[in-house]
């Protein structure tokens, strides 16, 4: 006999007329699949660097206070680093949680509700985090405690 053929997943369970979506969505799931892998590889570098600099160097986690954050975000290098990390991690995490909701929430209404909450939270966190990184002032007027050392030079 010739080589056996293997049917596509679900092809026995789902009538072919339902397996192709008509119009609209294009290859979104394929793009999301690829994005999970690409963002994952970049996140390894961003997150391991983040953890090393914040937890391992110098006094480690004990050194973290306002002055520590201000000292980092005074430099565009860490602003861009953290901005990229914020966007990639949030989009990667949101897409991952979206998959999990699709897997376990079987009622349509439950799935819709959970995903709506998820997307609202994602937008709020990304917008908030981005605004904080870009509107941040390392030497706020009137503040006295925990300022980075370069503030007094002004």
């Amino acid at each position, binding site marked *: 006999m010739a080589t056996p053929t293997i049917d596509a997943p679900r092809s026995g369970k789902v009538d072919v007329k339902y397996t192709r979506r008509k119009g609209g969505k294009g290859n979104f799931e394929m793009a999301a699949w690829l994005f999970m892998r690409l963002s994952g590889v970049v*996140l390894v570098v961003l997150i391991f660097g983040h953890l090393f600099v914040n937890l391992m160097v110098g006094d480690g986690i004990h050194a973290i206070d306002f002055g520590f954050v201000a000292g980092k975000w005074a430099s565009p290098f860490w602003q861009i680093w953290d901005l990229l990390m914020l966007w990639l991690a949030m989009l990667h995490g949101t897409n991952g949680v979206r998959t*999990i909701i699709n897997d376990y929430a079987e009622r349509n209404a439950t799935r819709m509700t959970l995903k709506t909450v998820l997307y609202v939270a994602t937008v709020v966190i990304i917008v908030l985090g981005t605004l904080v990184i870009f509107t941040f002032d390392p030497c706020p007027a009137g503040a006295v405690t925990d300022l980075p050392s370069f503030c007094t030079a002004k």
Partner: protein
Amino acid sequence: MWSWVGHRITGVVIFFFLLVHVLDTSLVRVSPEAYTAVIGTYKNPIMGLGEAGLVAAIVFHAFNGLRIVAIDFWKKGNKYQARLLWAVLILWVVVMVPFLIRHLSIVFGGH
């Protein structure tokens, strides 16, 4: 199968942590005092252990994520998937041991 369960659980845990992490870091925009005060409440042994657990979860998710990428894109990835899981676990130990020594001595060193 268990690597998948572990990947899924660590993914969700990291996601919820990240939501809180962005919120507390945003306090730098409120005032230096607000930020330093809230971060100060994290500086105790219980949070220190929580941080260690969180890093353990991230390191596993990261290495296992790279394993998933290898299985999907590398020709021999499927054949070696079990051995790659061992590599993930060994790398996890190799990274976690020095991390824990450093982090826990900072947390419990009390300076």
